[in-house]
């Protein structure tokens, strides 16, 4: 899968979600690739993708940005400037991930064929280890938003034995968290 195509899809999907649902902008920074997702702190939401191509989409950001994004999405104040992360904030980040990764999926399906998406899982913590047992590198697309950093990661590889796609009922890719 062409990295530029993934970056293009992530940039388009993230830009649309930020402008339409959050009323703010996310400025694209320099994308890069990594073997394992280098995420160990903050709020992380990930979603499994499965079809002829399979993998995971992930968004991550510091708690303060998660609170700010939740405030913009839900039009309520969530711990401005603080580190507290409530259920509403986690739910908001999960939904933002769902919209961004879902629209990336919609854009990439033109080339990769139909893919199913799992329900988002969201994690908040510090000093954790993230490990992916899937093959292939992760494409990391960072954004600057209101002086903070949001990262969108995508890892996709051809499925060895693709199962028929049943939308909404796919198991997520395996990510081990310690």
């Amino acid at each position, binding site marked *: 899968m062409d990295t530029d195509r993934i970056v293009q899809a992530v940039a388009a999907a993230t830009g649309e979600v930020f402008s339409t649902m959050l009323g703010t902008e996310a400025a694209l920074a320099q994308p890069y690739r990594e073997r394992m997702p280098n995420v160990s702190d903050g709020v992380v939401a990930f979603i499994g993708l499965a079809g002829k191509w399979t993998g995971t989409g992930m968004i991550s950001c510091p708690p303060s940005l998660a609170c700010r994004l939740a405030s913009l999405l839900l039009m309520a104040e969530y711990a401005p400037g603080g580190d507290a992360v409530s259920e509403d904030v986690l739910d908001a980040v999960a939904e933002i991930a769902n919209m961004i990764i879902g629209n990336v999926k919609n854009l990439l399906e033109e080339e990769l064929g*139909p893919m199913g998406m799992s329900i988002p899982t969201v994690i908040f913590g510090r000093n954790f280890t993230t490990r992916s047992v899937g093959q292939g590198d992760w494409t990391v697309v960072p954004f600057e938003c209101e002086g903070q950093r949001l990262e969108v990661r995508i890892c996709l590889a051809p499925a060895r034995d693709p199962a028929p796609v049943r939308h909404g009922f796919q198991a997520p890719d395996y990510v081990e968290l310690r």
Partner: protein
Amino acid sequence: MPLDVLIVDDSAAIRKILQRVLRQADVDVGQVYEAGDGLEALETLKRHKVHLVLADVNMPNMNGIQLLAQIKAHAEWASLPVIMVTTEGSQSKVMEAAQLGAAGYIRKPFSAEQIKDKLANLF
């Protein structure tokens, strides 16, 4: 007459946003009911009469397409307008929803104007 609405989405955030958008869209909204998946939605419909259902597609337990099929197969609810509000944008899902009788398909992210336009065509 105020419009009683059932919002079906596993995301509490989206349920809140849709409630707000409905009220912003100059719709005379009456009672708003919420459900976290298709099964909860069916239970709510058994207890409450509504004029409109807004349903996500990707949900646990019973997804939005299965919910739509159940509603359209039920004599009492068959004429109830169901609008799918979802990230799922694949053509096959849009076609499936249309064939099952969905009154509309709104893709997330959505604007208040999109919701308003869709409702203006229905009511």
